[in-house]
């Protein structure tokens, strides 16, 4: 990118320094410094002082005990495992439901499409908390939805398996279900925008050459929508893995997700160092898929450029 006259003028007058410096300093002060504090506290030891941490004492200057506990204490291993499993399941289910929905959106008429797209986006603008809450109303023991499912269950299974209600609240199932519900738009929208750009004549050509519709989907549509799948997958997986609200409201307290472990360490146990350690570990877990994604993107761009 060449320097333009406009940006040169900004540079000469020193305006550019001001325009860069203000948001820069803001983010350093309120985002980077707090994060560095977390990093620093993660290697401190818990102390009965206020604030409840310190360096030195019986430990060497830096304590790596928190990181050690991360790999030895059952609680952390389990919560990491459960988080990955719940987030992974939610991502896969979002893909399985969101993909045909996005594909369906590209096949309906123009006027229907804009209405349906608006209906996909609408829940976005309503409160996230209230969307989780809506499911609490449905999953409760005496709700019509639970009773309906129970009736169906009792109709299908033998008599001695009959239930009074289906235990849905406070389970991992509930967490995954509500995650799929709240994050599905994040999957549909990038998928839709990558599917919408596909050239329909390619489908026609493959059909004309004798491919069956499902083969056309596998060989033509699916590979071309890969960027949408990856973007949607990340947009669901990343927030789902660090989720705090959903597991607190509908999850099982005995098998918490990482987000909840961090909050509990901090609020209930007042163990700042351990909360920070788990936070750093969670962050590493988020950064990995993001880096893979940007590498994939760079490669794809390289391929584009090579053409």
């Amino acid at each position, binding site marked *: 990118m060449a320097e333009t006259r406009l940006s040169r*003028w900004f540079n000469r007058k020193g305006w550019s320094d001001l325009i860069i410096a203000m948001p820069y300093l*803001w983010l350093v002060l309120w*985002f980077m410094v707090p994060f560095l*504090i977390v990093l620093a506290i993660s290697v401190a030891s818990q102390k009965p002082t206020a604030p409840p941490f310190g360096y030195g004492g019986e430990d060497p200057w830096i304590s790596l005990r928190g990181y050690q506990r991360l790999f030895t204490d059952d609680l952390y291993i389990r919560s990491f495992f459960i988080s990955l499993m719940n987030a992974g399941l939610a991502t896969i289910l979002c893909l399985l439901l969101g993909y045909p*929905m996005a594909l369906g959106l590209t096949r309906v008429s123009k006027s229907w499409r804009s209405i349906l797209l608006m*209906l996909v986006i609408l829940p976005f603008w309503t*409160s996230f908390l*209230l969307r989780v809450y809506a499911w609490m109303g449905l999953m*409760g023991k005496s709700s019509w939805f639970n009773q309906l499912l129970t009736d169906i269950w009792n109709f299908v299974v033998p008599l001695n398996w009959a239930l009074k209600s289906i235990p849905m609240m406070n389970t991992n199932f509930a967490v995954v279900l509500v995650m799929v519900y709240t994050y599905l738009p994040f999957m549909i929208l990038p998928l839709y925008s990558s599917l919408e750009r596909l050239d329909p004549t390619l489908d026609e050509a493959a059909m004309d050459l004798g491919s069956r519709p499902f083969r056309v989907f596998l060989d033509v549509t699916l590979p071309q929508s890969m960027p949408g799948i990856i973007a949607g997958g990340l947009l669901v997986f990343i927030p789902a893995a660090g989720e705090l609200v959903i597991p607190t409201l509908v999850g099982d307290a005995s098998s918490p997700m990482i987000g909840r472990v961090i909050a509990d360490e901090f609020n209930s146990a007042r163990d700042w160092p351990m909360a920070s350690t788990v936070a750093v570990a969670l962050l590493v877990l988020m950064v990995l898929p993001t880096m893979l994604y940007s590498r994939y993107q760079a490669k794809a761009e390289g391929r584009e450029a090579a053409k």
Partner: protein
Amino acid sequence: MNRRPVFLITVLCFGFAFFYIPILSMMVYSFNGSRLATVWGGFSTKWYVSLWTNKQVIAALLLSLKIALVSATMATILGTMAGFALARFTKFRGRFVFSGLVTAPLIMPEVITGISMLMMFILLADWTGWPGQRGFTTVTLAHITFSMVFVTTIVQARLGQADRAIEEAAMDLGSRPWQVLRDVTLPTAFPAILSGWLLAFTISLDDVVITSFTTGPGSTTLPLLIWSKVKLGVTPDINALATITVVVVGIGVALAGWILNRAEKRKLLEERMAFRSNE
């Protein structure tokens, strides 16, 4: 495609049922006369009345709106600056760190953002005495920080797409740089700035996790109030509150969609007319 995609339409119907049945159920039960939130006890609007007279709810709503207004406006100013800098100043020292800093908050889990800011506020209060009491100021600071990067992303994308030759042409034709900024750059970026502000506003209005960490006693926003009630279970007055939210947002989104649609149609019509007159 001549065949009707029956499978896709079926999934689409199922998907929209999945989206809207919980919301509709909640709306229906907001008119439930029974105190038990999930058992129907006749039609009643008493929960709406009790909501309207609930001073706590009104105060929380006003605080939420105040925080959202201030933080969205500040986030838009800072975020637009950052987006402009990244799109127009190609080389400057620290650009790499800067672009990392505007991306990181997007993927940072809210728990970590919340806890890290709370730790910083506590340590700051320990060393300097400020902030003595957490509340409006600390929550607003936190909201500005995590919503400004959304504005940056939108503005940067918009300015990146815009043709810079127009800015150059305006310069060549003798416009002063600030005139170019006012007459070319700002109008180009304006839709992005506006949607950035709206996004920042709704993010702030909706946030639970970061607010719960950075607030203090006496400063309860509406999501926090709902959060503390909902943790104890389903209550009919929250159903009523949710219904009002959905209706207000629904009308807003439908109105915005209708206006955009009309503008689009008019543009198409104008283009067609221009095309005809050229023939």
